[in-house]
């Protein structure tokens, strides 16, 4: 399973997660956020930023390299 899951029914396409993801791992498509797993470091910020509670991040899925980077 991927680290980030987006609840499309709750996402309102505000673009906040897209703007502030430190790795540009989110994009807006047809007014919904879409996740790009290859770029993601599972930092968990988008879960906190989303005003619609539409994002959950499993931070245990942090890649080993990225763990160091954000520590």
């Amino acid at each position, binding site marked *: 399973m991927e680290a980030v899951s987006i609840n499309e029914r709750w996402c309102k396409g505000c673009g906040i997660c897209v703007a502030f993801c430190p790795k540009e791992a989110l994009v807006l498509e047809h007014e919904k956020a879409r996740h790009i797993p290859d770029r993601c470091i599972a930092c968990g910020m988008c879960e906190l*930023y989303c*005003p619609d509670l539409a994002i959950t991040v499993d931070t245990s899925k942090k890649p080993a390299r990225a763990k160091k980077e954000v520590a």
Partner: protein
Amino acid sequence: MAFQKLIRERFFPHLWCPGCGHGTVLNGLLHAVDELGLDQSSLCMVSGIGCSARIAGYVDFHTMHTMHGRALACATGLKLARPSLTIFVPMGDGDATAIGGNHFIHACRRNIDLTAIVLNNRIYGMTGGQYSPLSGQGILATTAPYRSIDPAFDVVQLALGAGATFVARTTAFHVKEIGSIIKKAVQHKGMSVVEIFVQCPTYFGRKNKIGDAVQMLEQYRDRTAPLGSKKLEADPSLIARGIFKDEQRPEYCEEYAKIIARAQGKEA
């Protein structure tokens, strides 16, 4: 995280506009409650009226959705009757400082153990964008088409002056601070006031041509700085964030319990 167990999922998606900062405060509050491991049945959220006040509908705690401006008055009654409850009182800027301004200063003065959260979007969102006591001079609102001439309250200074014992400020951009400050506010014994700048892109942002939610959040990022930071020292025009006061003073319900004991002749 496990926020799903803390909300009333049947009411989602919530009614707030795309990008409304009230949702970010709900998000941070749920993370704080989750991290503190609080029992939902020990929590009550008491709100008044406004877009912000609708937050009480979404949390799966005990909740009271009361009258505009009267959330703190109702919360005071509840806390006196059930001192063991942990009580959150989220309020809009109008709710807290216009119609509810009197309740606000007196709750601070009494130092009653509540966690008041002022969701400051500098406008009346629910009723269509009238200016509030927190809008400030030069602001455009439906009731100020030629710009407001009213100076704004500083909620932090107001709470400090009125006697609140925990006073803090952050913004909807600083999402980790929202959680950490709310955690400290809840653990504090006495009146806690947490001001959080939140974006209302629909009225405040659009009327004042600040742009969308992202641009409003960028302003919070760029125009604020942590208390005691070099950034704040270098540019006094920035607005300070952080914990302004965290002190102990006799708490109202505990003092009242002593009065009850005295009246019953059980005084030590």
